[in-house]
């Protein structure tokens, strides 16, 4: 594949999913991404996903390794003046800075946008935060599903007439979608910087991204006072005759969408329920069949149907995996691409970096530091290859 972002260099302060994955998507398009961490503040995914307590655990977290492949890793303690000086020197060599710290942290490091622009007027700073960089709630903290609730998605998610539901720890939906949007905007800003010589400060609010994804409901509420209350409706959907999951004889949940009256007539004919309501007849029909048989018959009748898969099905299904998962040469699994580019998936150039794995190479090649300089930084604790923290 051609590499749309070949020649672009990214300084990546991104953590967890929202920030780190935006940089990963830029790396997948050909950018050289340098991830900055430190022993005192490694990416929390190194800790959250740690498999055991034996030395080197911080380099083995699947959550970290899934997200940070195709990057180089540098350890610089940004709480030290020397770490800050080196970070600023790197900014001069980069096109983009990505960060999702709490508001104010970058300022304390002397790396706010005004400082970055003074070093490099073409720099694009993408700041991804919970609430955005302005407004009365700018300092609010959130963690994944906090934003399911505050964005409005949870109010529309839940069993019929019951309490709202969040996507939860194992999905953290609002964290996943922000990078799908932010990456495209960062690329637009890189184009503008090339054309005009002026960079940009891009202020992303994760909560706004999540609300953007239910925008038609907000628009409808603005024009229709009758829509003041949000009601959960299970799996039902406006304009759709019948939609839900029912259990098959072999215990799988089968998702079915009967979109309109024509589909309802076809479904009724298939299951022999021309008079009984589908809502009662269809569950019984599915319960009397295997998942495979029920799905095949419904699809043949032109009715969307599918089993509810879990992670074991996804890993086993290489066709569904397609480009969005990638197996490394040593049998490890990593995140792939959300799209196919020129028909292909991700090109894994390198595995996720160990903490500080490329400190020496990057500081030498980009900033001209000598081996002695780097040994001195190591002795001062400005760089390191081991974390000094416990829980996150």
């Amino acid at each position: 594949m051609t590499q749309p972002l070949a020649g672009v260099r990214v300084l990546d302060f991104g953590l967890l999913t929202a920030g780190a994955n935006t940089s990963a998507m830029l790396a997948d398009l050909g950018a050289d991404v340098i991830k900055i961490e430190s022993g005192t503040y490694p990416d929390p995914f190194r800790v959250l996903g740690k498999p055991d307590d034996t030395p080197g655990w911080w380099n083995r977290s699947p959550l970290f390794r899934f997200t940070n492949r195709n990057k180089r890793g540098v350890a610089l303690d940004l709480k030290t003046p020397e770490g800050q000086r080196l970070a600023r020197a790197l900014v001069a060599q980069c096109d983009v800075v990505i960060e999702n710290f709490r508001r104010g942290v970058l300022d304390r490091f002397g790396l706010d946008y005004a400082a970055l622009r003074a070093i490099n007027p073409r720099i694009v700073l993408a700041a991804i935060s919970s609430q955005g960089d302005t407004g009365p709630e700018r300092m609010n903290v959130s963690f994944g599903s906090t934003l399911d609730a505050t964005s409005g998605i949870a109010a529309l998610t839940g069993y019929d007439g019951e309490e709202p539901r969040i996507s939860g720890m194992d999905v953290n939906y609002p964290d996943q979608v922000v990078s799908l949007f932010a990456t495209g905007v960062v690329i637009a800003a890189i184009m503008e910087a090339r054309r005009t010589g002026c960079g940009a400060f891009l202020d992303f609010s994760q909560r706004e991204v999540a609300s953007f994804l239910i925008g038609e409901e907000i628009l409808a509420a603005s024009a229709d006072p009758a829509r003041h209350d949000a009601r959960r409706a299970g799996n039902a959907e406006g304009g759709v005759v019948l939609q839900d999951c029912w259990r098959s004889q072999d215990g799988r949940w089968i998702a079915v969408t009967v979109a309109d009256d024509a589909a309802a007539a076809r479904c009724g004919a298939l299951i022999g329920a021309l008079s009984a309501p589908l809502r009662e007849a269809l569950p019984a029909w599915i319960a009397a069949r295997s998942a495979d048989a029920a799905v095949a018959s419904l699809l043949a009748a032109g009715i969307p149907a599918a089993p509810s898969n879990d992670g074991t099905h996804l890993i086993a299904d290489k066709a569904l995996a397609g480009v969005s998962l990638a197996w490394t040469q040593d049998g490890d699994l990593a995140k792939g691409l959300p799209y196919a580019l020129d028909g292909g998936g991700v090109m894994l150039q390198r595995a996720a970096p160990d903490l500080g794995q490329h400190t020496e190479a990057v500081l030498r090649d980009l900033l001209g530091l000598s081996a002695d300089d780097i040994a001195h930084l190591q002795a001062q604790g400005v760089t390191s290859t081991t974390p000094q923290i416990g829980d996150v």
Partner: protein
Amino acid sequence: MNADAPRPLSRFTVIEVNDTDVPSCLRLATSLATRIAADLGATVIKIEPPAGDLVRRLPPLLPHGPNVERSALFQYLNTGKHSVVLDLESAPGIARALTLAGKADAVVFETPGRNAEALRHTRATPIEIAAFAAGMAHPGPVSEFTIAALAGLLHMVGEPDRQPLRLGGHQISYAAGLTAFTGLSAALAARSQSRVAPSVRVSLAEVAQWVNWKATSGTHAAGRSPGREGGQSEFQVVRCADGYVAVVFTVSQWPPLRDLIGDPRLADPKFATRTGRRQHVGALYAIMAPWFAARTRQDIQGQAQARGVPFGPVFTPAELLETEQYTARGFLADLSHPTLGPLRLPQLPVQWNGRSFAPHAAPGLADTPARAAE
């Protein structure tokens, strides 16, 4: 910054082709991707069949307005676009669409649309939206819901012994729409440097599975799949005096949460570790419930944030129209629609050097004569 200054994508033209007989879940992804491009300044020409984009008839419907305008979904997904009506089942219609695409930078369309093959081979970079990965045997009819099931996202939400639940709204289509926008942006970046742009193919199933990556990561690491934990989950949605609050916290946020609730029973050693809290999650929430029940969302959020605990009050879409944070940031744009009147809607969730990108109204059917667009 000057709201009238040229927008960043104003040098580019994008064609959106709305072929007939395409599942609506694909169209929602197409339309979201090009809406973002239009708000960022690209000229987006939406080619509609004579009866109009099928989304013009999909809910939620506004209480008043002409039939082809009343869909809030359509209005939301098509801001800032031009509409051209062409019969893509006729040779002249197809020829005209291909001419428009040939002059554009990118063309966004769905597979299996009847003209997909021709649209792959114009001078514009093809951005193609499909249900499944390329090369899969024809999978039959689809919906967002059945794709969510196949991609394992349904499995993650709800009670373990009850049916799995979809997320509200159109999350499968919209996640794919955001992805297609980013692919479009990458293609435009390559073209603006005179590089060959990669073709982009987005499938709803692959995007949903990508979003759900912790299911595969977790399965690979543990040998069994994560799944919905419902009432056994560490994070619960609890009732409070005026609604609901999502109780969310990390390991290091447990001590401030415990001190916030202030019930001495929370000091029990069985709650001291994450493993212990997960084992006794029912007892934990039984102790905490009265504290929430006695307080409003605003009170709870204020006290929790003061201690750095990320509780999330549940807001409805209607309540978000009044949210102080959204008002202060100008996130919601006011738009005066020629036939529907005033509408308030989310604008792009980014501020670019402090600038927001206010959307322009979606086009009526046949607003732009095809000749003028050429």
